[in-house]
């Protein structure tokens, strides 16, 4: 691990020194050894502040949206999931590839339950790769939890989600952290239209949950950030997984944020689309 950190830091230092990038987004230390925080390295002499360990859980890619017209390229240190986030946002016309310099780093999984099912540990796209690729495997249990949950009755499912959404505090952390949630203005913020009330109650909370799930349904890269950040511990990925499972069942193998240019299944219309539910 230490040689990877050295390689990472020296690569970043060089990129800043030769002016390839304006700054680099990565992970830095906090007060606690088991926690890191996103850092933005602008000076070569600060490259040593970058860390790479089991606790680098935060997604890095979405921060690039804070800077849509950068003077120099934005350097982003990306794991497999972050690379899918980059693809996601490029496919959504939110980022331009030529504005990014991608420092790929193969990831062996972090202190985050979602990593256990990860099928893309190596960055799918990068300009430079730190270290060597790690072994990847197909996760046969990708939809196991959802399949189990589907066995519950409608009432049981309603009861379950009602209790979960009763906890929701409308902090919108799940939305703000999500690389697929990249609308210029979120429907929930269109306060003059009033789609989404600010009041906290079962209705309002569930409307938000449902809308979020459908909006990201065919674009979710399965990074699990929504669930990791939820301060109330809602199992948010279970919803997006359900959307993805249905899409896989209806439209064949489907994963988002890969290097293909397949259109979003919910974003295109095809006369051959299945419509028996109509």
């Amino acid at each position, binding site marked *: 691990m230490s040689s990877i950190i050295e390689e990472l830091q020296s690569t970043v230092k060089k990129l800043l020194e030769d002016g390839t990038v304006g700054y680099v987004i990565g992970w830095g230390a*906090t*007060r*606690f050894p088991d*926690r*890191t*925080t*996103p*850092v*933005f390295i602008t000076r070569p002499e600060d490259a040593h502040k970058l860390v790479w360990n089991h606790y680098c859980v*935060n997604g890095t890619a*979405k*921060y690039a949206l*804070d800077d849509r017209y950068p003077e120099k390229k934005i350097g982003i240190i990306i794991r497999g999931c972050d690379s899918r986030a980059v693809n996601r946002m490029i496919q959504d016309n939110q980022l331009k590839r030529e504005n990014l310099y991608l420092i790929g780093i193969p990831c062996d999984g972090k202190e985050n339950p979602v990593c256990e099912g990860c099928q893309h540990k190596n960055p799918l796209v990068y300009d430079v790769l730190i270290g060597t690729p790690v072994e990847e495997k197909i996760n046969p249990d990708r939809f196991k939890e959802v399949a189990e949950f589907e066995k519950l009755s409608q009432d049981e499912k309603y009861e379950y989600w009602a*209790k*979960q959404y*009763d*906890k929701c*505090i*409308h*902090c*919108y*952390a799940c*939305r*703000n*952290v999500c690389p697929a949630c990249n609308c210029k203005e979120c429907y929930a*913020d269109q*306060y003059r239209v009033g789609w989404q*009330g*600010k*009041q*906290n*109650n079962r209705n309002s909370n569930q409307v938000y949950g449902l809308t979020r799930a459908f909006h990201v349904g065919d674009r979710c890269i399965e990074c699990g*950030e929504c669930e*990791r*950040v939820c*301060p*109330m*511990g809602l199992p948010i990925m279970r919803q997006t997984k359900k959307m993805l499972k249905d899409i896989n069942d209806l439209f064949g193998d489907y994963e988002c944020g890969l290097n293909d240019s397949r259109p979003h299944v919910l974003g295109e219309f095809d006369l051959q689309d299945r419509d028996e539910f109509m």
Partner: protein
Amino acid sequence: MQLKKTDLTGALKILAADASVFVPGEIEGIKRFVLWDGESDVDLGGANTQLPPKDILFPCTEKMYNYKMGDSIEIKEIVEKPRQVIFGIRPCDMRSIDCMDHVFLEKGFVDSYYSRKRENVTLIAMGCTTPERTCFCDSMGLDPNNAPNADVMMNDGGDTLVLEAYTEKGKAVLEALNGLLSEGGQAKKDTACTLKVNMTPELPEKLAGMFDHPIWDEVTRACIGCATCTYVCPTCYCFDIDSDNHGAEGTKFRCWDSCMFSDYTRMAGGHDPRPTKKERVRNRYMHKLSYFHERYGQHLCVGCGRCVEKCPAHMDITMFIDKAAEV
């Protein structure tokens, strides 16, 4: 006076006879203050509640009045004066009530919705015995073993809880519990936080002069602009007012709002004086550590550590304090 821990349920039954009693509990995996169900054991130890008790006095959504429009407008105010007891509230959260009292009851305006609840609540505080690694209340000038604004102060005495009444309301509580109490009791009052933060007496004024300091560019970049820090904060008191319209009638309500949201300072014409997270995070830190102090003479951060624990980006106000003290 002391109460045997084995008599705690009996004591809560007495308190619950004529009031809603809120105790530290758990709902769907989240530790928070819950309405005592009349029989469950209450655990006063362990980590503090993940959500603060502020919604008992300042609900996250609170109906204010109903209206009906016809030839004339009918308005019916919703007046609630629930008798409530918050049992086992820790000194950090007690200080947060002190902060809310300043905001809602002082400086020439009394918020009637808050004051009706505040007048009718009895606060039975519990000295902290189990600070988390993110707790830093003693750096913010609090004593984790004592809450001066409590009605009754409890401290852990081993097999007993040692109780002391600080107010008339508190004396009434001890009288009601008289049959279960005995004289004496030695309480352990030596809890201290492990996290020490360099909150110097000069910092509030120093920060006031640092509005344009480059430190803000650095410390605010990781923010994702969610409202987690403000909603888990025991002292964040901002609210919005809106209505739930159904044709010609409806309900006016107020609900928590967050200065982290993009629409918080957006004006009618579209201008936003705090357009990016830099201005928003700066405002929040300034409010906690400088502005409130200037207006009320105390910090708006009580050192409970909830925002440090819950921030999705692992931002840390204590790191900011240390950094600001140094520059």
